[in-house]
C-alpha cells in the first residue's frame, strides 16, 4: 500500500469515518421512511466533508458535498412527501458511493478524477423543484445597521504613538483575487483599524448588509478615511501586513482637503455610530443526534503492531529468565513466587494487547446491509437481512479480509439462493426472503454464519458437474453431503447456466475459500433442498502466543499446543502392533490408536526411538493419534512466528516458535497428522 503524506492520511481516515456514519444514518432514515431526525447530522457531515475536501483541493467531492449541504439546509422548513424523502435518501447513497470510489482512488495513490457533474445537476434540479413556493427563511436584514462597529474598550481612545495630534489619511485598498467575501474583509479592516484610528469613514459603506458591495470593492477598491497618530509609514506597514490585501494607496490628507473628501465619500452627517451590540445573532446550531459518545483515541496501526511484537518479545524474555539453564536444578522458592507473579502480569498485558487489535464486526455487517439493500432492487426480490452478534470482535486483519468473502456469499444467496416472490409463495414460504448473518466466539474461533431460507443447493446437479469435470470419481452415495457441497468452492466450477453480473461466474467461491484459508480458517456448507442453505466460516482468533508442550526428537524440539494434548504415555515397544497396511498402532484402554513416529515422519536422524520414547496423544476434531518422540522437555508459552514465504509448507507444521533459550522450535499442527 502506498504511503501518503500525513495530510492525505488524515483526510482519508476522517472521510471514511464520516462516510460510515453517514451510511448508517441513511439506512436508519430509509427504514423509518423519515429523515427528520437525521437532517442535522447529515448536514454537519456534508459540511465537514465539503470543508475537508476543499482544503485538499478535491473540487468534485467538495461540490457534491456542498450541494447536499445546501439541500439539507433547506429541508427543515419544508414538509416532504415520501417520494421526495426516498429521492433524497437515494441521492445520499449515490453521493456516498461517489465519495467511496474517489476515496478508493486516493488510497491507491491515484487521483480523484471522478466527475461530479451529473450528480450535482440532479441534486440542484431537485433542490429547485422542492424550493419553489417556499417562504423565505431569512428575515430581511434591518437597515439601521449601517456603520456598525461593535463596542470595545478602545472604542473612543486611540493609540497615540507620539503625543502629536492625529493626521488624516485616505486609503484605497484592493484585495487579492481569492480573498472572498470582500465586504466582510473590508469590515474586518475597519473593525481592526479602530484600535489605531478614529473618525473612520469608508466607502462603500453598506458592506455589512449588502453583498452587492463586494463587486464595488473589487472594481474600485475599498476607501477609508481616518485619523491616526501613527505615521504614514506605520500605516502603510500595517496594511501591508494584513493578509488578503493586494494593493494599497495611503495618502496623508491636509486639513483643508479633509472635508471635501469626506463629502465625496458619502454625504452623511454621522461618521461613526457606536451602537451597543444587539444580543448575539442567532446562529443555526447543528446538534448531533445519536453520535456515539465513546472515549476513543485514534492510534497508528503500526504502533499497535509494534506493541504486539514487543509483548511477544516480553513473553520470550520472561521465558529466558524463568527457564534459564543457569537455574536448572536449583530450588528457588522466592524466585518461583516472584516469577509466577511476573507471569500473571504478563498474561494480563498479553490479553489486553490482543484486545487492542480486536475490532467489532459491526462495520462489516453494516456493509452487508448496504449490499442487501442494493441487491434487492437489482434482483427484484424482497429480502430481509437479520444481523446477530455484530458486536463480536475479531482481529483487525480479519476484518480487512472477511468483507469480500461475506459479500460474495450474500450476493450468491440473494441471486441464486432466494427464490423470486411468486415461487416462494407457491412453496408456502413467506414472500420476503430471509438471510441471517451471525457471528459468535466458540472456543478459540470466530464463527460467522450466513443462513438463507432459499431453495438450497441441488446436490445431484453439483455432483454431476463435479463428476463431469473429474473432480469426483467415486459414486454419489459414497460421498458425504459436505464433500459434494465443498465442490462448489473449486475453481472454474459453476452450475449456473447464465452468468449473472453478480455471481455465478465460477470465480467467486474458490476465491472466497482462498481468502478464508489465508486467514487460517475453514468453510462448512450445509443445505437442504427447498429449505435453504447455511455457510459457516470458522476463523481462529489470532493466537500469537501459544501454551506449548515441548517434545524432543533427536536434536529437534517440537512444540505442541497444550490444548490439543490429551495424554502422554510410556509404552513398551512390544505393545506397538502393525495392521495390515503396515500402520503402527497401540491399544489403549480397549481402543486402537495410530502411531506416528516423528523421526521417520520428518526424516530426522539420531533418535533412539527403537528403544525408548514417549507417546503423546493429540486430538483434533474428535480424532486422536499418538505421536512418538524421544522425550517430553517441558511446558512453555511460546510466541508463534509464521513460516517465511521461502519455506515450503510442511504438513503438520504450522509455524516456528522461539524458546526461552533462544532455540527455534517447530510448532506442530495436530490437524496435519489426522488420518481421515
Amino acid at each position, binding site marked *: 500500500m502506498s504511503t501518503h503524506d*500525513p*495530510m492525505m492520511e*488524515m*483526510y482519508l*481516515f*476522517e*472521510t471514511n469515518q464520516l462516510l460510515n456514519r453517514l451510511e448508517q444514518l441513511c439506512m436508519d432514515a430509509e427504514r423509518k421512511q423519515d429523515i427528520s431526525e437525521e437532517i442535522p447530522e447529515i448536514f*454537519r457531515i456534508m*459540511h*465537514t466533508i*465539503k*470543508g*475537508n475536501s*476543499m*482544503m*485538499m*483541493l478535491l473540487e468534485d467531492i467538495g461540490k457534491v458535498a456542498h450541494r447536499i449541504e445546501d439541500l439539507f439546509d433547506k429541508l427543515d422548513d419544508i414538509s416532504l412527501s415520501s417520494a421526495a424523502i426516498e429521492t433524497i435518501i437515494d441521492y445520499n447513497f449515490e453521493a456516498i458511493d461517489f465519495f467511496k470510489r474517489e476515496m478508493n482512488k486516493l488510497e491507491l495513490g491515484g487521483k480523484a478524477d471522478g466527475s461530479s457533474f451529473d450528480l450535482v445537476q440532479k441534486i440542484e434540479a431537485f433542490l429547485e423543484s422542492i424550493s419553489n413556493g417556499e417562504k423565505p427563511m*431569512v428575515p430581511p436584514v434591518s437597515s439601521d445597521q449601517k456603520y*456598525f462597529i*461593535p463596542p*470595545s*474598550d478602545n472604542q473612543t481612545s486611540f493609540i497615540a504613538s507620539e503625543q502629536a495630534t492625529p493626521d488624516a489619511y485616505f486609503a484605497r485598498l484592493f484585495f487579492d483575487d481569492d*480573498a*472572498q*467575501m470582500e*465586504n*466582510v474583509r473590508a*469590515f*474586518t479592516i475597519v*473593525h*481592526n483599524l479602530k484600535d489605531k484610528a478614529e473618525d473612520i469613514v469608508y466607502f462603500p459603506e453598506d458592506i*455589512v448588509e449588502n*453583498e452587492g458591495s463586494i463587486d464595488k470593492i473589487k472594481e474600485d477598491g475599498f476607501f477609508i478615511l481616518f485619523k491616526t497618530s501613527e505615521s504614514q509609514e506605520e500605516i502603510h506597514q500595517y496594511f501591508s*501586513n*494584513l*493578509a*488578503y490585501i493586494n494593493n494599497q494607496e495611503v495618502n496623508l490628507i491636509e486639513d483643508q482637503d479633509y472635508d471635501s473628501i469626506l463629502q465625496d465619500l458619502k454625504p452623511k452627517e454621522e461618521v461613526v455610530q457606536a451602537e451597543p*451590540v444587539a444580543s*448575539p*445573532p442567532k*446562529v*443555526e*446550531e*447543528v*446538534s*448531533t443526534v445519536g*453520535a456515539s459518545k465513546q472515549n476513543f483515541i*485514534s492510534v497508528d496501526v503500526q504502533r499497535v503492531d509494534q506493541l504486539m511484537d514487543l509483548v511477544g518479545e516480553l513473553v520470550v524474555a520472561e521465558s529466558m529468565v524463568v527457564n534459564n539453564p543457569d537455574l536448572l536444578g536449583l530450588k528457588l522458592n522466592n524466585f518461583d513466587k516472584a516469577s509466577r507473579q511476573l507471569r500473571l502480569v504478563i498474561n494480563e498485558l498479553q490479553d489486553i494487547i490482543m484486545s487492542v487489535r480486536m475490532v467489532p464486526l459491526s462495520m462489516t455487517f453494516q456493509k452487508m446491509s448496504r449490499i442487501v439493500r442494493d441487491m434487492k432492487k437489482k434482483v427484484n426480490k424482497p429480502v430481509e437481512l437479520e444481523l446477530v452478534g455484530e458486536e463480536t470482535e475479531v482481529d483487525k486483519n480479519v476484518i480487512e479480509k472477511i468483507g469480500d468473502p461475506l459479500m460474495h456469499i450474500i450476493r450468491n444467496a440473494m441471486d441464486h439462493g432466494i427464490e423470486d416472490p411468486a415461487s416462494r409463495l407457491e412453496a408456502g414460504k413467506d414472500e420476503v426472503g430471509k438471510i441471517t448473518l451471525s457471528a459468535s466466539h466458540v472456543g478459540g474461533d470466530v464463527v460467522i454464519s450466513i443462513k438463507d431460507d432459499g431453495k438450497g443447493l441441488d446436490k445431484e446437479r453439483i455432483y454431476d458437474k463435479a463428476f463431469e469435470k473429474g473432480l469426483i470419481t467415486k459414486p454419489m452415495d459414497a460421498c458425504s453431503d459436505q464433500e459434494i457441497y465443498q465442490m462448489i468452492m473449486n475453481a472454474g466450477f459453476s452450475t449456473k447456466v447464465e452468468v449473472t453480473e453478480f455471481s455465478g461466474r465460477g470465480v467467486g467461491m474458490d476465491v472466497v475459500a482462498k481468502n478464508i484459508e489465508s486467514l487460517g480458517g475453514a468453510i462448512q456448507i450445509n443445505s437442504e433442498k427447498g429449505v435453504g442453505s447455511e455457510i459457516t466460516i470458522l476463523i481462529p482468533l489470532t493466537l500469537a502466543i501459544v501454551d506449548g508442550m515441548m517434545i524432543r526428537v533427536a536434536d529437534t524440539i517440537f512444540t505442541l499446543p497444550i490444548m490439543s494434548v490429551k495424554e502422554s504415555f510410556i509404552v513398551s515397544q512390544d505393545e506397538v502392533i502393525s495392521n495390515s497396511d503396515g500402520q503402527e498402532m497401540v491399544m489403549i484402554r480397549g481402543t486402537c490408536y495410530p502411531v506416528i513416529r516423528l523421526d521417520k515422519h520428518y526424516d530426522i536422524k539420531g533418535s533412539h526411538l527403537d528403544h525408548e520414547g514417549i507417546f503423546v496423544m493429540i486430538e483434533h476434531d474428535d480424532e486422536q493419534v499418538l505421536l512418538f518422540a524421544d522425550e517430553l522437555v517441558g511446558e512453555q508459552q511460546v510466541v508463534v512466528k509464521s513460516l517465511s514465504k521461502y519455506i515450503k509448507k510442511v504438513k503438520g507444521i504450522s509455524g516456528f516458535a522461539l524458546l526461552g533459550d533462544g532455540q527455534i522450535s517447530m510448532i506442530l499442527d495436530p490437524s496435519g497428522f489426522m488420518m481421515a
Partner: protein
Amino acid sequence: MKRLLIVDDAMFMRSTLKMMLRNQGFEVVGEAQNGIEAIRQYKSLKPDIVTMDIHMPEMGGLDALGEILKMDPKAKVVMITAAGDQKHVMDAMQLGAKNFIVKPFTEEKVIKVMNSI
C-alpha cells in the same frame, strides 16, 4: 512563541492547521471539537490566539466567540469559514472576531493572517 488554541470539529482541519503553524512561531497548546470545549480550554489555557470553526455540534463558533469575548474582551479569535458563509462571518466580525480565513486556504495565507493579529 504565540500560544494557539485550535477549535474545529473536523480532525482533518485541526491537524492541517497544526501542521501549517507548527514551525512558524506558534505553539498549539490545545484543541477543541466544539464551542463548549473551546470555552473550557480557553479558560484553562488562556491562549494568545484562537482559531474558531463556525459550524460545530453542541455549540457553534459564534456562540463560543461570544462567550469567550465576554470572559476576556481582549481575546483574539480568528474565524475559519467555508466560502459563502457571509452572514455568519459578518456576525462573527461584528461580535468581535479579529479576522477570518476562508477554506480552502494555503499555508501562506494562514501564516500571514495569524501574524497580523
